């Protein structure tokens, strides 16, 4: 009995009392961690490490589970054993892998998004860059790797022609991405930047997901779900616009209407081209969103645009003025659905259809061109672990094209299908490898395209990345209609990139090499045996907020590009790839004036052209191009913006090349005519007003 009690007492003592646990918490580099939370699992009882990373904890005993948790580190659970009470414990916590903070590949890509990391440009920049005139493309032209071709307006990337850039909306291809225009009159991209929440612009070596683009990809992501009911009204020197967004519990609908007419404007501002009918147009867009179940979203987007113009122009070999009119009709439908199956699987897919119709009357000739593109795509993303992501997908492109001349017509249709798979794996926070493969089938040929990229973080602020890829793009339907048996053009990209980000500074330097094969040649007949290359480097420097309220960036691009293509006998430098290109962009917010003042200066070393009076091909270069643009946005109230912008303030008479007569005159020389700017400058004045319950909402995005 006596012994019995003693036993119970000892048992009770051992259960209720316990020794003190002591130790230190350190990271992988043996550095103490301060204020680590240490507690008995499932209880209030615990402590935190002190300024030396040390802790002491009593009222715990062998068999208890202790939890160690600290921001940025993996939580550790530790089952106590009796020997732990006799020693000084060293607890090592492992840094948690955080995808958001891990290195990413920056070679070739420029992400335009709100996230802070490694962002070169954000969506607002697109609309507040002087000289961009609210066109996404206008802002991209101040970025490394691009060349200004103001007489065209489209995007030219690293020695590639404009049709080597593909534009996608929510992953689906936008056909006829630019408004139709007549020779020498710059076009614009079709949609306002306000429709998009962010974009991804790649100047080479992009993911296996993208095909049918030899040089560049611009991927625009539309707004998922608008925040609130809102009405926007705008009137400007070139037209007017109205937009309304209605938001319900699970749906939203945005409708935009725009009317453009440059006639009143052209009465005030002189033009270099004589317009019989000033450029004018209407456009309307509808965006519908439907949330489906808990994690699905359906997006529908429809756009219709009409534009027209008529010009009278001098001709080289005739005293008669040439009269040309253009009517362009454009429809685009984009249906997209995305669904989170669970936390690890995401599927999305959709259909886009673009139809573009151009009716041209040139003197007595009636020309019609009609092109349609149907793109279908499905994609599955599998987030296997935090570190490994896999992506699979398949897509098909169907193209239809017909053209007519004075009642005689011909047409062509073709289809291409492709499949892709890609995986990226983070070995650790500082090293990522991405491997992809794309296979496409077109007519009787198939192409296998490997892609690979690697990102390595050298230290906290700098990253080195490498990217490589094979790209294929089929010949344009306007050529295939003449010669159907042409193989696709090919390009191989290799890019090395160094990027430095610290505080308000961003610096990047990128060197690249691109090799072309099977380019189109035209020697009486069409062949696809052309060749070419582009190589060079880009520099980009940006400082945002280093000086309060001031943001500026400087870009320089060197391009060495030659092509043996089209009708040329030799390898020549294409007209759209000036050797030296630079941009300076600055924006300054003046609180006292409630204004943002912006300036940009674009300059390049001139465009090559072929002068038949001289020996050689493309042997001549125009004088240097430059343009100084200024803008002023005045916000008297948060929801009212008055925006003024003027391009080419200095009135530089830029020349984009020369046209020559096809036959020599009596003295054996060919007469020439310069290809000038459509107008010496462009002046824009607009007033934008927003009505919504949120008085701060405005249309900065519209400018």
């Amino acid at each position: 009995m006596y012994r019995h009690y003693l036993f119970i007492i000892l048992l009770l003592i051992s259960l209720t009392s316990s020794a003190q646990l002591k130790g230190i918490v350190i990271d992988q580099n043996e550095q103490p961690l301060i204020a680590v939370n240490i507690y008995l699992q499932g209880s209030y009882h615990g402590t935190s490490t002190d300024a030396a990373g040390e802790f002491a904890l009593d009222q715990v005993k062998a068999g208890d589970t202790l939890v160690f948790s600290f921001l940025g580190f993996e939580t550790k659970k530790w089952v106590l054993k009796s020997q732990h009470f006799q020693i000084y414990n060293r607890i090592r916590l492992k840094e948690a892998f955080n995808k958001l903070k891990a290195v990413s590949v920056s070679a070739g890509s420029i992400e335009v998004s709100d996230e802070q990391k490694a962002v070169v440009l954000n969506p607002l920049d697109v609309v507040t860059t002087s000289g961009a005139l609210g066109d996404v493309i206008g802002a991209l032209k101040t970025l490394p790797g691009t060349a200004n071709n103001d007489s065209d307006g489209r995007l030219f990337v690293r020695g590639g022609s404009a049709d080597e850039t593909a534009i996608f909306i929510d992953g689906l291809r936008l056909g006829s991405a630019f408004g139709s225009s007549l020779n020498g009159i710059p076009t614009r991209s079709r949609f306002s930047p306000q429709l998009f929440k962010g974009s991804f612009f790649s100047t080479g070596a992009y993911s296996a997901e993208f095909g049918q683009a030899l040089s560049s990809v611009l991927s625009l992501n539309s707004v998922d779900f608008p925040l609130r009911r809102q009405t926007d009204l705008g009137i400007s020197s070139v037209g007017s616009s109205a937009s309304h967004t209605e938001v319900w519990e699970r749906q939203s609908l945005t409708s935009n209407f725009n009317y453009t007419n440059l006639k009143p404007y052209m009465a005030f501002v002189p033009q270099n081209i004589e317009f019989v009918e000033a450029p004018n147009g209407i456009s309307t867009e509808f965006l519908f969103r439907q949330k489906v179940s808990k994690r699905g979203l359906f997006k529908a987007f429809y756009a219709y645009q009409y534009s027209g113009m008529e010009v009278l122009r001098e001709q080289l070999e005739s005293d008669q003025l040439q009269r040309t009119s253009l009517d362009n009709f454009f429809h685009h439908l984009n249906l997209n659905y995305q669904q989170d199956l669970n936390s690890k699987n995401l599927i999305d897919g959709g259909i886009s259809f673009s139809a573009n119709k151009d009716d041209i009357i040139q003197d007595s000739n009636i020309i019609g061109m009609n092109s349609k593109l149907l793109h279908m795509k499905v994609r599955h993303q599998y987030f296997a672990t935090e570190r490994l992501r896999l992506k699979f997908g398949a897509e098909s492109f169907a193209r239809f094209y017909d053209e007519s001349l004075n009642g005689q017509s011909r047409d062509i249709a073709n289809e291409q299908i492709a499949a892709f798979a890609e995986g990226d794996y983070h070995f650790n926070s500082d090293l990522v490898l991405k491997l992809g493969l794309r296979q496409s089938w077109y007519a009787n040929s198939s192409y296998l395209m490997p892609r690979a990229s690697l990102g390595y973080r050298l230290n906290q602020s700098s990253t080195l990345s490498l990217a490589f890829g094979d790209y294929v793009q089929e010949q344009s339907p306007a050529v295939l209609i003449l010669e159907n048996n042409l193989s696709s053009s090919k390009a191989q990209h290799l890019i090395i990139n160094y990027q430095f980000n610290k505080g308000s500074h961003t610096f990047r330097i990128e060197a690249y090499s691109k090799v072309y094969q099977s380019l189109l040649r035209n020697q009486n007949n069409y062949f696809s045996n052309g060749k070419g290359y582009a190589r060079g480097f880009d520099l980009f420097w940006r400082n945002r907020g280093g000086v309060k309220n001031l943001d500026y960036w400087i870009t320089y691009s060197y391009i060495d590009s030659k092509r043996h293509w089209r009708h040329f006998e030799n390898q020549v430098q294409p007209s759209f790839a000036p050797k030296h290109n630079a941009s300076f962009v600055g924006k300054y917010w003046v609180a006292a004036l409630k204004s943002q003042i912006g300036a940009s200066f674009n300059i390049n070393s001139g465009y090559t052209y072929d002068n038949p009076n001289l020996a050689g091909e493309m042997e001549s270069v125009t004088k240097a191009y430059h343009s100084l643009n200024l803008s002023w946005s005045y916000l008297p109230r948060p929801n009212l913006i008055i925006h003024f912008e003027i391009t080419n303030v200095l009135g530089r008479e830029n020349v984009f090349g020369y046209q020559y007569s096809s036959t020599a005159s009596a003295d054996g020389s060919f007469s020439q005519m310069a290809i000038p700017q459509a107008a010496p400058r462009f002046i824009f004045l607009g007033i934008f007003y927003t009505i919504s319950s949120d008085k701060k909402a405005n249309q900065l995005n519209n400018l």
Partner: protein
Amino acid sequence: MKTVILSLCAIFFSLNLQAQAETETSKDSKYESYMKETLALYDSVKTLSDYQEIVNRFDRIASAESKEWLPLYYAGLTNIYMSFVNGLESEQRDDYLEKALEYVNRAEALEGESSEIVLLRGYVFMAKVSVNPAIRGMTLSGKVSALFAKALEIDPKNPRANLMVGRWKYGSAQFFGSSTDEACAYMQKALAIYKNQPESNSIEPSWGENQAQQMSERCLGKE
């Protein structure tokens, strides 16, 4: 000797039983008292580590009380406070705010979209904007406005919702150089609600009165 041992045993048993009874019948009061004890620490906060200690305590309570949203709410709020501590790099500030958002999400999973939780979410995004106003202002400010407005709509008498709507409008009025009247009206309303609240020792959210007081004084000073 036997009696001594017996009585010792009896004492031990009774102590143990007492302790057990206490844990069963007054679990709530233990929760409340520990919450109150932790909330009282706000008064003596000096460093980032002091704040972290508060977060750690709420974290522990949350781990033991898996159905209570308040410990998560306060852990989130404290992380927001930490993001405002002077001398932090913007990346660190973002870390605290990401953590805050995590707590808000967990609290919302338990409590639903209540006025206080929607407001706290708005506060996180407001703090995110303040990390980099030039870049995030345009893209996130709509979200902040919408969240604050929603918090106020759910409970128009929530003084913190009035305060934050006022603070947010005040900031933008200053940026645009426009009148702060509307913002100040919200601040005054918030202050009136705070003043009318009976003195209570509850663990429900009650922060913001000092701020409302200061902002209202600033408003009056301007006039």
